[in-house]
């Protein structure tokens, strides 16, 4: 039997220990760094309250596809688009706009979209029958706070209605009897979600101190009916039933007689 000299044995043990310790240290640093890193990324990408340029794909896909090059920002002739800076509390480097400062003026040639190299701004989503069409853009949806909208007070104001590039389509004015005076009409602006592009010209035009009409991302501003309710009188909506599958549920019926179930109240006490 060979006996290892003391010194050498110490050395092999310490090398292996060093190796294990180094691995553990590396794993520890990686775990800590990875945790902080992913927590931070999760936090900064969670912001939903920002408006993207026209043609932007779904936010989840947008965040992974946008390469943050700023070509859309450079293409915008009105300086509407901004790239999120550190401190803006928005996903860093991605394009957005603030309509109250500078709204989207809905250029017919949409210069910001075709320059996008990644397809994060999707040309096909702002195209109808082979031609660019800004009117089908879905940047957001204007919503009205009827408490602070002075038209709802009975004061005549149609600033948003007049500012709307889709005049008379995206915003209409509905007349309603003014019960307070008894002899005037309220001229209430109403936004139509299927037409509104979210350009924000109404928000820019609004006369109140803080805009009473403002654009929100569609996912934030709108609800969703889901599959349980279908307009049976609407052929288009009924198409949603086409691929529906039937789920049969059976409820077990109690075999006990009704009298028994009334008298047998043991469970209650």
């Amino acid at each position: 039997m060979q006996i290892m000299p003391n010194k050498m044995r110490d050395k092999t043990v310490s090398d292996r220990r060093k190796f294990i310790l180094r691995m553990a240290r590396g794993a520890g640093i990686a775990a800590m760094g990875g945790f902080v890193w992913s927590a931070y990324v999760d936090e900064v990408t969670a912001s939903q309250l920002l408006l993207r340029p026209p043609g932007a794909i779904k936010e989840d896909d947008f965040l992974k596809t946008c390469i943050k090059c700023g070509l859309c920002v450079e293409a915008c002739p009105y300086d509407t688009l901004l790239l999120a800076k550190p401190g803006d509390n928005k996903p860093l480097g991605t394009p957005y706009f603030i309509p109250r400062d500078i709204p989207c003026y809905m250029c017919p040639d949409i210069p910001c979209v075709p320059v996008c190299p990644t397809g994060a701004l999707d040309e096909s989503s702002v195209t109808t029958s082979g031609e660019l069409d800004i009117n089908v853009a879905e940047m957001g949806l204007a919503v009205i706070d009827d408490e602070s909208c002075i038209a709802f007070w009975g004061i005549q104001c149609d600033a948003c209605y007049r500012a709307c590039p889709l005049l008379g389509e995206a915003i209409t004015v509905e007349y309603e009897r003014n019960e307070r005076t008894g002899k005037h009409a309220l001229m209430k602006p109403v936004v139509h979600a299927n037409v509104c592009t979210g350009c924000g010209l109404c928000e820019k035009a609004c006369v109140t101190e803080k805009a009473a009409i403002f654009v929100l991302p569609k996912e934030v501003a709108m609800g969703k009916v889901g599959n349980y309710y279908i307009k049976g009188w609407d052929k288009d909506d009924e198409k949603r039933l086409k691929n529906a599958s039937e789920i049969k549920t059976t409820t077990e019926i109690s075999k006990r007689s009704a009298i028994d179930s009334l008298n047998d109240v043991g469970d209650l006490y």
Partner: protein
Amino acid sequence: MRNLWDNYRYLFFRRFTQIGLLVLYFGANAWGWTILMGNLSSSLFLDVVPLSDPYAVLQMLFAGATIATDILIGVLIVTIFYLLIGGRVFCSWVCPVNIVTDAAALLRRELGIDAISKRQPASRDMRYWVLALSLIISAMMGVTAFEFISPISMLHRGIIFGLGFGWAAMLIIFLFDLFVLKNGWCGYVCPLGGFYSLVGKISLIRVQHTAENCTACMKCKTICPEHQVLHMIDKESLPVLSGECTNCARCIEVCDDDALSFSIRKLAKK
């Protein structure tokens, strides 16, 4: 006696390309120039040629994004370019953070901090681990992980489109490099540098050492931000083959004995 030009010519050219590129990008946003639009993540050269950051696109792939053709062409052009002239040429000739970290390294030398702490308590392989981690996080979270924290893009994007709090990131890197770790950001942490180190493993333009001329003054090793790549100094006449060399050419400039020069790598192995 070598003059100022000999000692700083490459440094001058590097600052010229670094700042020149920023000026071109800045002009595109501010005055509508069309020479170089966009930024270092992706740009359009002369309104036609797409150029894209291959590392950003790699993260997009891991995040599960669909990659457009323009981007693929851009990545191909950039990758082939750096394969030819040296991967980390990006770091020392293009990246604006390099100016910040070089300033920190200069101050470190001037203040004698290098002399006080000679050993750096970290591994230069860290950048490859950060690189791997960035891809794992990209895949798990479905976003381009490094692009959301990258101080490099913060700075160049900041100079072109508005800096915000980006200056704070630069200050942090400067102080980190100055007091914590010599060449800390570029030489240890930055995954983009790590990525280009891997690209640079097979690239063509190399620094060549001629051992016969060497007087072992070690000026090159003192100035080099990645001094481990100069292991052959005064020992063997070899090209610097490590991808971690940034081709910054500072070693060539400081050498008084013509022992270092640029050369083209021999493709056929002996």
